[in-house]
């Protein structure tokens, strides 16, 4: 299993000008990214929707590379979107899924069938043609450049160590430095997208 922050540091060296939706990796990513105006650290607007949001972004911005760090819990909640993504075939979409085998933000309870579900097989069966499964940093460091240089949609299953939170939500440290709406506004400004 990988350390999520270490994995993201390696990814950042290959990020280029990609737009990054850091999902559950957001708390680490905001400290690592050196292009915050091309990041959408949205936290958790509603569980299960990160992949569909990022897919929508990829469809709207075909000239930009969109990278998503999804989670196993989110994918299980919105698994049907994998078929939609495969149907839409956004060539600019890179779908990484952090698999910590649990719901870390609610105390670490296991996601259904956490130990044996094969997410790479699920993605492939839904129609992703480029699928990877990586469980260590060494392999990730070797493969990341190739993953990002192939046309999307690409699904990459990453085994990561759980970072379980047990404190009441109100007592947890806030990692987001901007509101969700501000983050989107900053990205739109960066890309020169005018308000309708």
């Amino acid at each position: 299993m990988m350390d999520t922050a270490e994995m993201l540091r390696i990814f950042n060296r290959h990020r280029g000008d990609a737009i990054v939706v850091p999902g559950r990796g957001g708390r680490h990513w905001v400290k690592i990214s050196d292009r915050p105006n091309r990041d959408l650290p949205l936290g958790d607007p509603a569980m299960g929707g990160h992949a569909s949001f990022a897919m929508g972004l990829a469809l709207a911005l075909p000239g930009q590379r969109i990278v998503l760090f999804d989670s196993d819990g989110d994918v299980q909640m919105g698994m049907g979107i994998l078929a939609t993504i495969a149907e839409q075939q956004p060539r600019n979409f890179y779908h990484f899924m952090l698999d910590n085998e649990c719901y870390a933000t609610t105390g670490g309870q296991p996601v259904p069938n956490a130990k044996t579900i094969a997410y790479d097989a699920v993605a492939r069966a839904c129609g992703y043609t480029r699928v990877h499964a990586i469980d260590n940093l060494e392999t990730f460091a070797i493969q990341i450049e190739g993953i990002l240089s192939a046309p999307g949609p690409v699904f990459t299953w990453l085994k990561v160590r759980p970072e379980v939170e047990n404190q009441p939500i109100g007592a947890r440290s806030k990692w987001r430095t901007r509101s969700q709406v501000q983050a989107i506004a900053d990205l739109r400004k960066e890309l020169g997208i005018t308000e309708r």
Partner: protein
Amino acid sequence: MSDTLKSGLSPEKVLAEMKKNGVTHVVWLPDSETNWLYLLMKEDPSLTLVGVNREGLAFSAAAGIAAGGKRPLILIQNTGLMESGDSLRGWAIGLNVPVVLMVGYRGWTRHGVNTDTAAVYTERFLNAFGVNYYLVEGDADAQRISIAFEEATKTKRPVALLVADEYHGFN
């Protein structure tokens, strides 16, 4: 029967309103009444159809499309709308997405009492989330489609159109 009810809502009119308001992507989950609209949308090169298999996913997909500067429309049935409460809250309202929801109003009747609970709870659901809505029964109401788009843009919130007529074939 009034002229409105006689004429119904034509798919050609709905498509024309979509194009007039700059819709680029239709995020949808079909129901039995929308096939003719689907056939028209599919033939239109200016529209990208994004089919989802759970209505909640439509709200997050539309939020991403809107964040990227394009104009989505969500086309779902009221049953699926009610399944989508958390996504409506978090992705559409929470991110200030100015999206129009075209919602098939299953079970609604102008006459007598609604007995289908899908219809009974639809407006209560929208009121609970503070989402404004307009009833569209026929082509005479089609201007409400543009009104909904204008309101969504102005308020940066979702606005619903309750389609109280089954889409039907070419008129």
